[in-house]
Each structure stands twice: as C-alpha cells, then as structure tokens.
C-alpha cells in the first residue's frame, strides 16, 4: 500500500517540478538535433574557409551515432544530476522522517523512487527515438528501424543501470552532492572498465555504449550484447539492494 502511494507521489512530484522538463526535453533535443547536425556537418566544415576537410558521405548510421553519443555523455550526466538527490535530499531536508515514521518501509521508499525515475527516463526516450528516426528518414532516406530500435534498447538498459547506482548512492549518502560524486565515480569506472579488463569487457555494462554503435553498423548482433545486458540488469539490482541494505541501517 505504502509503496504504491509513494510511487504515485513520486510521479506527481515529477509532473509538478522541473524534472518533467529536463530529461524529456533534453532527450527530445538530441532526437531532433543529432540528424540535422550530422546532415549539415560537411556544409558547416566547408563554410569554415581555407581549411579543406574531406569527410565521407554522412549516413543514417552517423546520425544515430551522434544521437547515442549525446545521450551517453550529456544525457547520462543529466540523469545523474536530476536523480542524485532523490533519496539524499529527502533525508537531508527532513521529509523522509515524515514518511518513514508512517507504515512505509525503506525498501518501498527507495523502489518507488527508482520506479518513477525509470518510468520518466524510459518514456522520455520514446519521443526522442521517434524524432531521431523521422528526421533521419527525411534527411538521409534509408534507415533501419530494427537496428536503430535495438541500439536504443541497449541505451535503455544502460540508463537503467546508471539510475540503479545513482539512486543506490542517493540512499546511502547524506547529501546529494556526495551521492552525485559517488555516481560520477561509478560512471567513470564503468566507462574505463572494458578498456582496463578487456577479457571481461563482454560482461561489462560499460561496453553497452560501444555496442549501440556496433549494432547500427552491423559489426555485432544483438545476441552478442546479451552478456553485458544481463550483467547491467544484475548490477542494477545489486546497487539498489546494497543501497537499501545500508539505508535500512541508517538513522534518519
């Protein structure tokens, strides 16, 4: 009962605060801008003047490549910034005391927040993907629906993994700055892991960003990304469980 009510409150909060604008609009901007900028890039470079840069002809893969680069860099940082305070701020401000002194468990408290955040991020991805697909289709002609969708699903798994450790860190740390610091640290570690331990790269969530591009170009199949997908989902559960485990031992 408490979890469902708290989840509804989280959704209402998203709609009544700036959270409803930041992630959806940013993702949508990437959806629109990535194909347009990719298309215009040769003209922009040509307009720079004396410097002659010869670029291969841009394709729909380049447009989606740009889309995923934006999502994996600025998009992921925005997700961390928006959700790093989701539990920590409630603890810091004192709103958590008002809730946890009622029949609401800490498990429900954290999972409701993760559920609402995941819903926002995944629903933000749908219009962004559609915008990118349509603009790419108009500007470049051919575009593979199946491959672009599969790559987007890999990003969805990756962003859930990021949300898992961000909300886990937020449950453990006392302030949102500390939770953000831990989350950025984990993000950097995730990104470096495939290069540092190449033999384990196939199981690394950090490989998912590269797989998105490889899927588009057909250099890997979706099945080859499964070990990384499964480990990302398992680590999402691990980070959330650890966050809840430590949060339950904290005094609020």
């Amino acid at each position, binding site marked *: 009962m*408490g979890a469902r009510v708290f989840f509804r409150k989280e959704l209402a909060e998203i709609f009544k605060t700036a959270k409803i604008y930041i992630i959806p609009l940013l993702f949508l901007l990437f959806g629109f801008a990535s194909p347009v900028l990719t298309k215009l890039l040769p003209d922009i470079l040509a307009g720079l003047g004396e410097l002659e840069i010869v670029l291969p002809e841009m394709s729909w893969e380049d447009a989606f490549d740009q889309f995923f680069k934006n999502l994996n860099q600025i998009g992921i940082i925005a997700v961390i910034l928006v959700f790093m305070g989701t539990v920590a701020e409630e603890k810091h401000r*004192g709103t958590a*005391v008002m809730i*946890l*002194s009622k*029949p609401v468990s800490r498990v429900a408290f954290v999972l409701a927040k993760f559920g609402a955040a995941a819903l926002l991020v995944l629903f933000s991805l749908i219009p962004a993907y559609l915008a990118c697909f349509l603009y790419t289709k108009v500007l470049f002609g051919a575009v593979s629906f199946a491959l672009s969708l599969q790559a987007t699903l890999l990003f969805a798994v990756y962003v859930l993994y990021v949300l898992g450790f961000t909300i886990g860190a937020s449950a453990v740390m006392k302030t949102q700055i500390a939770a953000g610091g831990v989350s950025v640290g984990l993000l950097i570690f995730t990104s470096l892991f495939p290069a540092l331990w190449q033999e384990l790269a196939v199981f690394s969530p950090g490989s998912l960003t590269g797989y998105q591009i490889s899927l588009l170009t057909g250099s890997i199949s979706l099945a080859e990304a499964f070990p990384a997908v499964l480990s990302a989902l398992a680590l999402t559960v691990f980070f959330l469980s650890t966050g809840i485990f430590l949060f339950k031992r904290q*005094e609020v």
Partner: protein
Amino acid sequence: MAAVEMEKLTKKFGALAAVNHLTLRVPEGTVFGFLGPNGAGKTTTLRILLGLAAPTAGAVRILGENIRKSRGYLRRVGFLPDVPVFYNWMTAREYLRFAGELFGLEPTRLGKKIEELLELVGLQKEKKRIGGFSRGMKQRLGLAQALVNDPEVVFLDEPTSALDPIGRKEVLESINAFKDRVTVFFSTHILADVERVCNRAAILNRGELIIEDGITELRQKYGGRTMELEVTEVPEDLFPKLQAASWCERLEVKGNLLQFGVTDGEKAGRSLPPLLAEAGVGIIRLESREPNLEEIFLKLVKKNGSQSFFP
C-alpha cells in the same frame, strides 16, 4: 495497558549515552509531558520510539507491541517532528490526502477526516501551496497529519519551541482540542506548555530519568511554596540573612521585590517578621503561591548537576 513502555532504554553515540537506562511507563489516556533541557535525550528517545533510530540496549513496547519485532504499531500512532518538513509543491489538503493514503485509509472517510482536521488546526480556507506557509501554519499542518489515521498515541517533539507567541498559542489550543481522544506524548523544554496541557510529566536530564509523576503530585512533593515579598527597601545585610535561613531557598532580588522558595512554611511564618523588623524593613506586599513547574524543574535539574541554561 500502558500506551508506551520503556525498559532500560539506552542509546549510545560512541562513549556518550544520549539515553541512559530509561525506564518509563505512559498510561493510556494521559497527556504526558516529556521534559528536559536541550540535549537531555528527548528527541533521541522519540526517534527510537518511531523506529527512526535503533536503541543500543533496552526494550520498548508501544500499545503492547515490541517495536523491534514489528513496524505494525506505526499504523496506530501519529508523529509530529520538531520541525515538520513537507513537499512544498503540495497544498495542505494534498499532503493530508497523501499521508492518509499511506495509512491505507478509505477515500470517502479520508475526505471527511481531512476537512475535520483542517478545521481543527484552522487551515480549512488555505488553498496555497505549503511552500508559502508560515512556520506556525506548517506546525499546525504537522499536527493535522499526525492525527490523520486517528492514532491511539500521538508523539509531539517540541511542537511549540520554534514558534512566536501567537503560533504557540494556536498549536496549544489545537492540542487542547484533541487531547481527550488520544494519549499524547509531548516532548518539550517549555515548562509553561506542559502546565497548560499535560496531566503527567517525566523530567529527563543527561539521558536519565529524574522524576516521573502527575503534575499535581510533582507540585506537592517537590514544590514547597514560593513567596513574593515587596519591601520598602533592601538593606545590604538582608540578603545574607535571608539566604542563611534554613527555610529559604532560590532567593532572588529584583529591586524591592524578594522572591524565594519556602521549604518549611510554619518556620518561615515565625521567623520572617522579626527578621524584617530587625533589618528595619517595612512590608508593602507579601504573597505566597503554589510553585510552578519551572521552579520544580530547576530545582530537580540543578540537584542532578545540569549546567544547562533554561529560558
């Protein structure tokens, strides 16, 4: 059955015992003042009672339930923290609905309850978001949310200490309006508030219980009487003479007004007039009155070696 029972409750932070072997029984239906200077361990005790902190040792039963075994008792209690913090984007009605839903209250019943509570705390006409509320309004909304589930015990942590006199009066009036229906556990360091609303009190100092009794009994047992004596003048030797008297305690001089506690009324009655005559002092007014809780409190806390300042 006791509403709240604590048995050797202890909470340590490193070497410091914030609550030290606290054994206390709060009978059902009482308005129980939980008194102590700042840092006495009141808030720590309340946080343990509400499951927000774990005790180092000891046992607590609330409404017969062992709080370490189950959180079920939270359905039957209400809590107002010292500084209640809300979601600023909600209105008072939205917050009360949200709080009621967390208890699983049925929507129609909850709707009626919300209107009742808003009327009780004087916020029924308030439409703006909580972000625009004054501190007093937030405190009153805090009281309302603590009552939304019709609790059997309501815990109030310093509900008036951060308020101006008007806000304080409003909150105390609200407490007076519901105190007959529920056991109230009222933590505070403002003694006048306890005198206004409580019928029983415990005094805590440095994490330890000093005394626990009915307010009337506390006055009888620990008060003695307090005298106010207005005189024509206060010669230099009067103060030491009075201070030396065996029946006189807590002597204070404010201009021509002498105020002191009397431990033995009969002896004071016999000794005071010749003492004043000998000093050549005329009496303008002599008044004997019941001690207030503040005087009892200061007496008990000082006896226990507190260095705390009390307003």
